[in-house]
Every structure is written in C-alpha cells, then in structure tokens.
C-alpha cells in the first residue's frame, strides 16, 4: 500500500470528528445550517472511508458510496449550509427542494450505472480516483503508461478510450459539475463574502481568518477534484486531507466565542492620573 493510499484513513478520522462536532452544535442550537454542514461532512467522511476501503479490496457498493457522496454530492450539501446563513428564508426553502430532488436523481442515475461497471479494470495498486472513469482520447493524445485502452463508438464516432470503472457516457457523471458548481459558489463564495464583510467593517478578526481557512480548504478539494478529472488523480487524497484539516480549524475558529472587550488592569504611577 502506497503512502497516498493511507491518506484517506486520516481524512476519514478528521471528518468523523468534524461531523460529530458540527452535529452536536445542531442539537444545541437547532440551526439548519449546522444540519446541512453535518450531512455534507458525513458524505465527505463516507467518501474518504470508501477510498480507504477501495485501496484494500473491491466492493461495488463501497464504490457507489465513493462516487455518489465523495465525488458528486458532498460539496453541494456543505455549501447549502452556508447558504442557510446568508440567503433569505424563501430562497433557502426553494433551493433545498432542488438540492434534495437533484440528489435523489443522482442516486437513481448511480443505481442505473451499477450493472454497467467495468470491474475488470479495478486494481488495488492504484487509487480509485485514478481508475474510476473511462476517458475518450483526443486525436494525437497518448494514453497514460500502463492504462488499458479500448476502441469503441462514442457519440457516433469511433474513439480510443482509457478504460475506467464508469464507462464512457455514464449519465451520473454529467451531474457532478452541477453539484460542484453549486457547492463552490455557496461554500467558497459564501466564506469569501463573509470574510470580506467582517474585513470591511474591521471587526471579528477571528471570523475573517476562519472564513479564509474554510474557503482555502474547500478550494483545496475543489482543485484536487478538477485535477482528477484532467487525469491527475494522485493529488486527490492529499487535497482531501488538507481540505478536511483546514476547514475543521476554520470552523473551530469561527465557532469560538470571543468577548467583545476584555478589561486589562494595569498599575500606573499616581502622577499619571
């Protein structure tokens, strides 16, 4: 097992701790933002655990969890928590309906893809992020070393494709950009906007730093996911661990109560009165 394959174990542990922490806050404060964050974090943790498992053995339902929760849905649910803090009540409910309906539709599409999985390409020698999706090669493009290729018809043309667990044209893969755009806009955009508001008013420096960390953590996983889609899946697990740790620190900083003022007593010479 490579060092890269061990990283998801650490990410899983961090996300489990993070999820429990956020869920406890939801129990105490009953703010739906914490509930959506907890659901998103639980999805993130489930995805990390699935990665760790798939580094050891194959199981198609673990792959189901990895792709659906780890790759498709978690960013959107995390971002939806941020939306609950920033948007008007009416819009929050409308978007919640869309998010739940979209998530159920993605689950249906993933279920439909399960019988079509090309499981013969699976190996524990490579991280799952490097073997999950088939990719059609452009003209002149060379397949990565040791990649298995296949000639097939795709969108009416004969193409050479790198084989992957999810075959070319699997519908569920089309849903991930929609969820990830929404997740990026709300989670990163929301954190940047919040940091800017505090920064502009010159108040709550801890909230400024906390939101910068949350945005940076979300961008770490967003960038690593994009690199994965471009064929550089080896950075995904590191990106996840950096994301989990950075967002957790940011969340703890934001949640930490800060007194408006502290009284400092100092002894001064009487002549100075």
């Amino acid at each position: 097992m490579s060092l890269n394959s061990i990283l998801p174990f650490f990410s899983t542990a961090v996300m489990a701790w993070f999820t429990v922490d956020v869920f406890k806050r939801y129990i105490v404060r009953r703010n739906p933002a914490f509930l959506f964050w907890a659901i998103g974090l639980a999805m993130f943790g489930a995805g990390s655990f699935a990665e760790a498992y798939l580094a050891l053995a194959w199981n198609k339902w673990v792959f189901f969890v990895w792709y659906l929760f780890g790759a498709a849905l978690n960013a959107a649910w995390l971002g939806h928590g941020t939306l609950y803090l920033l948007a008007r009540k009416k819009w929050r409910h409308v978007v919640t309906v869309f998010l739940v309906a979209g998530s159920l539709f993605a689950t249906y599409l993933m279920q439909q893809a399960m019988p079509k999985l090309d499981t013969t390409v699976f190996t524990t020698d490579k991280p799952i992020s490097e073997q999950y999706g088939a990719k059609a090669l452009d003209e002149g493009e060379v397949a990565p070393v040791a990649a298995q290729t296949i000639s097939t018809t795709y969108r009416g043309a004969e193409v050479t494709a790198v084989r992957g667990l999810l075959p070319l044209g699997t519908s569920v893969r089309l849903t991930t950009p929609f969820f990830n755009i929404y997740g990026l806009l709300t989670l990163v955009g929301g954190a940047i906007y919040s940091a800017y508001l505090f920064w502009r008013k010159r108040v709550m420096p801890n909230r400024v730093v906390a939101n910068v960390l949350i945005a940076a953590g979300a961008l770490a996983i967003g960038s690593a996911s994009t690199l994965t889609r471009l064929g550089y899946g080896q950075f995904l697990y590191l990106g996840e661990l950096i994301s989990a740790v950075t967002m957790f620190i940011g969340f703890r900083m934001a949640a930490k109560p800060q007194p408006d003022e502290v009284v400092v007593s100092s002894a001064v010479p009487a002549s100075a009165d």
Partner: protein
Amino acid sequence: MATQIDMKSKSHMPKDSLFFEKIVPISLITMGIITLGLILFAASVILGIVHF
C-alpha cells in the same frame, strides 16, 4: 500608585497589521479568481468543451 482600567478591544482588527491589510485581501481576491476558474471549468464540462 493607582489602578487604571484600560478597555482593550479584542473584537476589532489590529491597526497597521500586514496580515489584515495585505495578506487577507490578496488571499480573498486570489481565491475568488481560482473559484471562478474552477466554475468555468465545470461549466465547460457541462457544455461539452472539456471531454470526460
């Protein structure tokens, strides 16, 4: 000697701080640009400009 009560604000940004005056705004702008880039990439996947 007499005791003076000094109110020191902890909920305001320190003045003349390089971190808050320079690093934070540059970080926010940079992250905004990266976010925009990632969103454009995801949109190009949806539009079929980037193949998968």
